[in-house]
């Protein structure tokens, strides 16, 4: 059955949407290729600082990447998480789908798999992410994602150790700073 091709994308990521659609309209290309090209466009363009290298450093100053790709026809899946030193995360996710029978690879092992599959190992820091990280450290590491630890994570950096008396309840009223999300 023939359908009218469509691509939908979170946020106003115009180039990613355009490139994905253009790819899909290329003879022989598939909807899977489209998702890969679209996500890759944002990884290269570092869309709104929330995709790709050079932004959003972790507590240790490093940027790591997560990606997922799913084929709706075969239900094959490839995913990577906490990927270090590889810029093309969606490509590695596609490689997990294509060159393994697993679904998800994580951390340094995912990086090793990527290198074995021919992906280039690179530094994901940028001057911006280093500056952001230094500012954060100099500002008592706020905000952070620690709780029930000492020293008080709302006023201090780590290293942290468990606080003897824990508040059992998970505060469902947590609010991330504006624009700070996945």
């Amino acid at each position, binding site marked *: 059955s023939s359908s009218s091709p469509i691509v939908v994308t979170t946020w106003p990521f115009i180039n990613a949407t355009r490139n994905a659609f253009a790819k899909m309209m290329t003879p022989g290309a598939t909807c899977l290729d489209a998702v890969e090209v679209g996500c890759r466009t944002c990884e290269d363009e570092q869309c709104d600082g929330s995709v790709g290298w050079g932004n959003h450093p972790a507590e240790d100053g490093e940027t790591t990447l997560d*990606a997922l790709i799913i084929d709706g026809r075969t239900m094959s899946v490839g995913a990577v998480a906490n990927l270090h030193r590889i810029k093309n995360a969606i490509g590695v996710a596609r490689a997990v789908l294509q060159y393994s029978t697993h679904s998800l690879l994580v951390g340094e092992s995912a990086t090793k798999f990527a290198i074995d599959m021919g992906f280039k190992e690179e530094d994901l820091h940028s001057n911006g992410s280093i500056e952001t990280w230094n500012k954060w450290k100099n500002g008592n590491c706020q905000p952070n994602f620690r709780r029930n630890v000492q020293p008080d994570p709302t006023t201090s950096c780590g290293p942290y150790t468990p606080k003897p008396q824990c508040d059992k309840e998970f505060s469902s009223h947590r609010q991330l700073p504006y624009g700070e999300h996945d």
Partner: protein
Amino acid sequence: TIGMVSLDSNGNMAAGGSTNGLQFKIPGRVSDTALIGSGAYVDNDVGGACATGDGDVMQRFVPSYHAVQLMRQGVAPDEACLDAIKRIAQFNPNFTGAVLALDKNGRYGAACHGMDSFPYSVMKQGWIDPEVLQIPCL
């Protein structure tokens, strides 16, 4: 985070996403983007969905899978996304996030929370450029 769902002329569908996650995350933290059914989900027989937002909270509710399963029962994409969002908001009234869905018939819709509005992009056959649609949030 970028989330994407695609439908090609053969009626095949795919979904996926990519992100660098939360700023200042604890090393090792995994976003919802990488998690099947949270960051994205798709089934040729039904449609696909993807999500973006506070991944620590959203991944606990598997919103993309939730939306696809509702579309499997005939619920429209925007309604399916809204239901997924409501489930999350019930436990996390302050969360920020959005779910976007595209069904196998080419209908699409989204829902969001914690923002005034949520913009998403669409491109179809015959269009010169993608269109950005803005929806008000719950």
